[in-house]
C-alpha cells in the first residue's frame, strides 16, 4: 500500500517554509500544499507598504515561481479550503468535496483580520489589509480618494497611513489606546512615531474610539466617542487579527487563542503539527507561551514543524524579531522588550537614528531600533547567545555591541 502524502494546510509563508524544510530534512514522499487563495504563496509584508504604494507588481510578490514547486515535488491545490479534518480516518475534507488522506498534517492556517464591530462597519468604504485581493482593492480605492481614515494605530494602519500621505491624501488615524503600536513597542518609540506621523501631516487622534460609521453625501462619516465626525472616502481598519484555529478546534485539537503547540510545534495529536501566526506556542527562548504574528515566527517555527514531521524534533528557541517601514523610517524590533524595568537609549532620536534597549530582571530582553539596523542585529545575537550585557554598555555608543556579541 502506498503511503499517504504529507499535507500542509495553509498557503502562506509558514506553509511554504514547511514544504521547503521537509525536503531539506530529507522527506522524499508525496507532499501537498493546500491554499485557500487562488495564487502561489506570496509575501504579505509589502501589501501595506511598497505594493500598496504601487512600487511593486503582483508577480514580484511571490516567494517562488511555479517551477520551484515542480522542482521540489510540491503538489499545489490552490483556491481550495480545508473544511474539516477527520483524524480518525486521517483525511482532510476540502471545499470542493474531495477527501484527501494524509500520513502527517501541518496546519499553517494563519490569521484573519479582526472586524470592526461598530454600527455601519459593513459599509463598502470600510476596508482591511490582509490578502493580495484586499491590497489590490485598497490600492484602487485610494486612487480616487482624497480623505482616508485609518482605524487602529498599529503597524498595518500606520504603514497604510504613511503610503497615503506620500500620495497626498488627507489622513486621520484613530487609535483607541493612548499611544501608537502599544502592544509591540515602548512608550518612547510610540511617542517618536506620533511625532513622525504628525510631522508628515497625519491628523492623529489617540485615546479615541470609533462608535459608528454613517453614510455621507460622498463617502462616510466616522463617529468617535469624543463626539467627533471624520469624513472619509476610504476607511482602513487595522485593529489586529484572529487566529484561524477553528478547523483545529473542530477536529478536537487543543486551542487557546490559537492552535496550542509545544516547543517542537506538535499539536495535541502526534501526527499533526502547526506553525506560524495561528499557533499559541511555547518559545524556549522566552520560556513562556505566546502567539506571534511575524515573518520570523512563520519561518523559524515552520522549520521546527518540518523537523518534527521528519522525526528530527528540535525545540523552537529563536529570538523573535519584527520590522515596520513607515515613510523612510525603518523600525526593527528584537526580542520581546515589553514589559521592562529599564529602558536605555543608544543614539540620538533628534538625528533620526537610535535604539532603546530594554532590561527585565536585570537582563537584556529586547530592543527597538529606528534606522539603526546594526543595533538590531547585535541585539538579536546577544539575546540568542544569552550574552550578559549591562545597561551602561548598551547606552555607551563607544561600546561596539556586535563585537561583544561575536565574543
Amino acid at each position, binding site marked *: 500500500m502506498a503511503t499517504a502524502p504529507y499535507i500542509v494546510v495553509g498557503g502562506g509563508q509558514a506553509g511554504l517554509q514547511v514544504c521547503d524544510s521537509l525536503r531539506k530534512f530529507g522527506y522524499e514522499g508525496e507532499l501537498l500544499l493546500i491554499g485557500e487563495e487562488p495564487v502561489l504563496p506570496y509575501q504579505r509584508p509589502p501589501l501595506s507598504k511598497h505594493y500598496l504604494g504601487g512600487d511593486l507588481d503582483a508577480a514580484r510578490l511571490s516567494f517562488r515561481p511555479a517551477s520551484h514547486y515542480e522542482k521540489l515535488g510540491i503538489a499545489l491545490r490552490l483556491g481550495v479550503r480545508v473544511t474539516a479534518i477527520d483524524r480518525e480516518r486521517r483525511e482532510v475534507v476540502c471545499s470542493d468535496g474531495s477527501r484527501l488522506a494524509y500520513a502527517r498534517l501541518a496546519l499553517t492556517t494563519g490569521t484573519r483580520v479582526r472586524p470592526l464591530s461598530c454600527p455601519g462597519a459593513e459599509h463598502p468604504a470600510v476596508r482591511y489589509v490582509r490578502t493580495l485581493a484586499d491590497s489590490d482593492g485598497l490600492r484602487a480605492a485610494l486612487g480616487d480618494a482624497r480623505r482616508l481614515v485609518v482605524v487602529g494605530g498599529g503597524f498595518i494602519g500606520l504603514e497604510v497611513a504613511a503610503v497615503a500621505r506620500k500620495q497626498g491624501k488627507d489622513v486621520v488615524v484613530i487609535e483607541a489606546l493612548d499611544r501608537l503600536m502599544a502592544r509591540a513597542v515602548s512608550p518612547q518609540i510610540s511617542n517618536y512615531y506620533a511625532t513622525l506621523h504628525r510631522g508628515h501631516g497625519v491628523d492623529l487622534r489617540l485615546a479615541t474610539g470609533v462608535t459608528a460609521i454613517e453614510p455621507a453625501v460622498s463617502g462616510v462619516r466616522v463617529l468617535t466617542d469624543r463626539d467627533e465626525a471624520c469624513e472619509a472616502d476610504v476607511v482602513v481598519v487595522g485593529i489586529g487579527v484572529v487566529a484561524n484555529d477553528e478547523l483545529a478546534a473542530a477536529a478536537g485539537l487543543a486551542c487557546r487563542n490559537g492552535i496550542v503547540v509545544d516547543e517542537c510545534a506538535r499539536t495535541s495529536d502526534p501526527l499533526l503539527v502547526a506553525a506560524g501566526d495561528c499557533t499559541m506556542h511555547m518559545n524556549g527562548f522566552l520560556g513562556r507561551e505566546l502567539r506571534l504574528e511575524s515573518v520570523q515566527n512563520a519561518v523559524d517555527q515552520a522549520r521546527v514543524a518540518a523537523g518534527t514531521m521528519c522525526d528530527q524534533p528540535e525545540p523552537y528557541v529563536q529570538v523573535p524579531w519584527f520590522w515596520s517601514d513607515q515613510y523612510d523610517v*525603518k523600525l526593527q524590533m528584537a526580542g520581546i522588550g515589553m514589559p521592562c524595568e529599564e529602558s536605555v537609549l543608544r543614539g540620538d532620536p533628534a538625528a533620526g537614528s537610535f535604539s532603546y534597549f530594554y532590561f527585565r530582571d536585570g537582563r537584556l530582553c529586547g530592543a527597538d531600533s529606528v534606522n539603526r539596523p546594526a543595533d538590531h542585529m547585535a541585539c538579536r545575537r546577544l539575546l540568542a547567545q544569552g550574552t550578559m550585557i549591562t545597561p551602561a554598555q548598551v547606552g555607551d555608543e563607544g561600546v561596539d555591541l556586535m563585537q561583544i556579541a561575536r565574543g
Partner: protein
Amino acid sequence: MPKVTYRQPDGAENVVDVPAGWSLMEAAIQNDVDGIVAECGGGCACATCHVYVDDAFVERLPPISDMEGDMLECTAAERRAGSRLSCQIKMSDELEGLVVTIPDRQT
C-alpha cells in the same frame, strides 16, 4: 534585458535575465536560484540575501548605504570586499554580465 550570473558555492551557475529596476534578490527568487533566503522580502532588514560581487563589478555598483553597510556587518557568512545585500542592488543595463557568488550560508 541584462543578464546576471549567480554562482553557487560549488561553482554551479544560473544565468538569469533581469528586468531593469528589479533587485538582484528579486531576480534570484523569481528564477528559483538557491541560496538567497531574503526573509524580509527586500527590506534591508535581515541580511539573508548576501552575495559576493565579482571584483570586476564592485566599482560599477551603486554605493553601499549606511543601512546596508550596517547590515553587512551582520551576515552569517564572512563579509568580504565584494559583499553586498542583493536586495539593495537594482538592475540596470550598465550591469550587463554581472557575476555574483552566493555564500555557503545566510542564517
